[in-house]
């Protein structure tokens, strides 16, 4: 199967401390790939490198055949949730997504509303995001990640703040996306999420990536 992400021995040093240490891995298309590790182990930094937010000190990253930082600045056709999703607090959920969608104009109002419905949010809700619960913000974060129908999803702790039903919905939804051929890279602290969802699992510890399951 084709690799959607190819990471070739990347290292990352910030303020003289090694964050990533010669990480190499290939992620295949159409699977859910799990990334586990303690806080500060380098999971988020690896995801940011894949997205193109940070240029690794050494090594190369290819997403869908394009080298990040050379062929493109940021990984294309990628939906992301990195850290806690942030939105403009005085706009409604729909208006926030509309602002983001207008950057590329790939989609219109119906696709935005559809994405919101899929994650269990009411697109007609006029309430400001400021008044959303943490779970609702997380759902809105997922809606912004999926609304443009990207091939790759990079999700850092997407279950944060979700209640039991929310987690179950989210799992069902992510498995459904996999069935439709999407690739998902997910970082989570929950062993159950990783167990239920992931085809492959890697562990990050002090910047070193170890393959655990499904390789």
């Amino acid at each position, binding site marked *: 199967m084709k690799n959607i992400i190819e990471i070739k021995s990347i290292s990352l040093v910030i303020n003289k401390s090694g964050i990533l240490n010669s990480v190499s891995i290939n992620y295949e298309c159409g699977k859910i790939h799990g990334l586990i590790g303690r806080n500060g182990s380098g999971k988020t930094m690896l995801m940011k490198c894949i997205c193109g937010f940070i240029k690794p000190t050494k090594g190369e990253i290819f997403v869908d055949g394009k080298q990040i930082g050379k062929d493109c600045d940021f990984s294309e056709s990628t939906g992301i949730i*990195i*850290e806690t999703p*942030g939105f*403009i607090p*005085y706009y409604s959920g729909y208006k926030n997504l509309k602002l983001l969608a207008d*950057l590329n104009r790939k989609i219109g109002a119906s696709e935005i509303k559809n994405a919101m419905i899929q994650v269990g949010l009411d697109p007609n809700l006029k309430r400001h995001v400021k008044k959303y619960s943490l779970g609702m913000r997380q759902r809105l974060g997922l809606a912004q990640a999926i609304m443009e129908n990207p091939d790759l999803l990079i999700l850092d702790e997407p279950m944060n703040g979700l209640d039991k039903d929310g987690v179950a919905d989210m799992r069902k939804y992510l498995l459904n996306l996999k069935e439709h051929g999407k690739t998902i890279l997910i970082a989570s602290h929950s062993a159950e999420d990783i167990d239920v969802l992931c085809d492959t699992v890697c562990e990050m510890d002090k910047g070193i990536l170890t393959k655990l399951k499904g390789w």
Partner: protein
Amino acid sequence: MNKLSLRRAWRIAYIEYYKWIVNPRMCVAFSMIIFVWNFAVSPLMLLSREMESPLNFFEPFIAVLNSKTLCLITPSVYLFLISDYPRLDQNSFFVICRINKFDWILGQYLFSIFSALTFLSSILLCSCIPNITNTFMANGWSLVVTRYGIYFPQDSNSFATTLITKELYNQISPNNAAFISFVMTFLYMILITNLLLLFFVLNVKKIGISIIALVIAFGSAFGIIKSSIMWFFPMAHTMVSLHYTEYFNEPIMKIHYSVLYFLGIIFFLLILNLIFVKHTKFLSINENE
């Protein structure tokens, strides 16, 4: 996706501008307006009432941007308001992943223009509008500015009479002084945002803010003592009164040299920003700090 898009840059600027306007630190701008009102506008209005003679519409604005006492305040408050520029919060990641770095830089430039214009327009409106019923629009200096010291010699050295000096009213018309002050201060603010952007793309944002604060402080200090070193700093180029002597027609520094000074540095910084943005780390606010 890699093509530069003005539309995307415009949207980025809009998002950034909205976040900036609703930022709680904007309260400082209101405090500054009250401060400016007390130290520049109100004293001029008092003189005007005392002389029973109207002010020129632009005189309070010119006083605010050319007073040696206030020259430190305007850029410092602007630096405070814009100190997290370019702002990188959790929402920014959603924006950045949909664009390319050149769009982002262009968007930040547009935002810096909007923010500088907003800040300066607020000063203009708040200094000129409250006194509008007691002003005239003709392009001449008021008797309050030019003759107060003669009518009231005992008060000729009061603070209010030093706000607009002979270097201004003997050399240049009030409309020109207001226009040039506006343009120069605008360019000064764009220069400040450019420097902030440069230090961000070099991943040394905190050090950058300290350096800019020093540039503002030393520029103002050298401007106040009129040292020739002041021309190395943007502050002196901003203050129209420093370009002239009290009586001689020949300016100390030609206005268009100052414009070239600003445009040259801004263009140079733009090039540096475009070069170094390739290596910028887009970390969140906490990580940057």
